[in-house]
């Protein structure tokens, strides 16, 4: 039984997308990626260290031919910087599937939705396929979709906080209203958080810190793989209804 998902015409089997930041070293990063089973990694675009060009590069450890690189705009606080970053990313790697995030402030790393919408429109017009980090707001999600977002990526909680899915209602409403994939981006702290996102019907989950800052990142990567699969299966299976009181599982008839 294969359960695949597609974004902008590209099909993937793993519903877990992992970041490549905050790891001890590239070896640990590559091992965690392997354990996670992820087929997509997010990467950042930064200036080359011109004083030490021989420093190891991410591409030496994670092969862009085997794993889909999803360039992001982490650290961009306005539409112009984000667009400029992604134009460079497209030139560097040739990828048009990108992750847009335009941040509003450093303290919360909450998205600036006005700038995010503007950047989405520009990128879509330039032929990019933007997957867009956003607030967990069903109306904003629709606006992004209209602007050309190929995936909606609402935060579950602030980036790097590990607080888990704070508002299940809004995530569910976004899933129900979207005709593009919805992936929870940011806020996952442990395996159960990833399972919750998937049980709400999300198409996938993106995480970085939950794996990279675990005491054993490779084991946590495996836990996340299993949690995403378990949550997806539970969603497809259709959970039981909830009752206010107990309901015995053994027959009442024939009691001695």
């Amino acid at each position, binding site marked *: 039984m294969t359960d695949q998902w597609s974004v902008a015409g590209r099909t993937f089997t793993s519903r877990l997308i*992992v*970041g*490549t*930041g*905050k*790891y001890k070293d*590239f070896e640990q*990063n590559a091992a965690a990626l392997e354990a996670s089973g992820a087929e997509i990694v*997010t*990467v*950042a*675009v*930064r*200036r*080359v260290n*011109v004083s030490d*060009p*021989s420093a190891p*590069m*991410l*591409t030496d450890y994670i092969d862009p031919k085997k794993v889909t*690189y999803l*360039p*992001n705009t*982490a650290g961009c606080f306005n539409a112009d910087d984000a667009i*400029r970053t992604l*134009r*460079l*990313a497209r*030139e*560097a*790697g040739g990828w048009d599937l990108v992750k847009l*995030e335009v941040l509003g402030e450093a303290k919360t*790393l909450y998205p600036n939705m006005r700038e995010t919408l503007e950047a989405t429109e520009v990128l879509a017009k330039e032929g990019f396929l933007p997957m867009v*980090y956003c607030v967990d707001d069903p109306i904003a999600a629709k606006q992004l979709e209209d602007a050309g977002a190929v995936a909606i990526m609402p935060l579950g909680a602030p*980036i*790097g906080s590990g607080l888990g899915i704070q508002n299940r209602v809004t995530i569910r409403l976004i899933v129900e209203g979207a005709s593009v994939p919805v992936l929870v*981006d*940011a806020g996952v702290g442990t395996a159960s958080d990833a399972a919750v996102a998937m049980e709400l019907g999300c198409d996938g989950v*993106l*995480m*970085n*810190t939950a794996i*990279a800052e675990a005491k054993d990142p490779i084991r946590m990567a495996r836990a996340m793989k299993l949690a995403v699969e378990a949550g997806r299966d539970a969603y497809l299976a259709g959970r039981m209804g909830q009752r206010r009181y107990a309901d015995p599982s053994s027959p009442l008839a024939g009691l001695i």
Partner: protein
Amino acid sequence: MISVILNGEPRQVRQGSIADLVASLGLDVKKVAVERNREIVPRSTLADVALAEGDALEIVHFVGGGC
């Protein structure tokens, strides 16, 4: 030699193409992207674009990053 701004820092470089500069820095041209005066320079034209005095260049690559 001419003066350019390379990744935000003033730098003296030899006159020539952008491809020459990238090579002289020991970088693999296939792994980087270059912006000159806020315009992307397509990789296919890096050897054809000559550096000019005062050019602002950004040479970027992919690094680890999450959200």
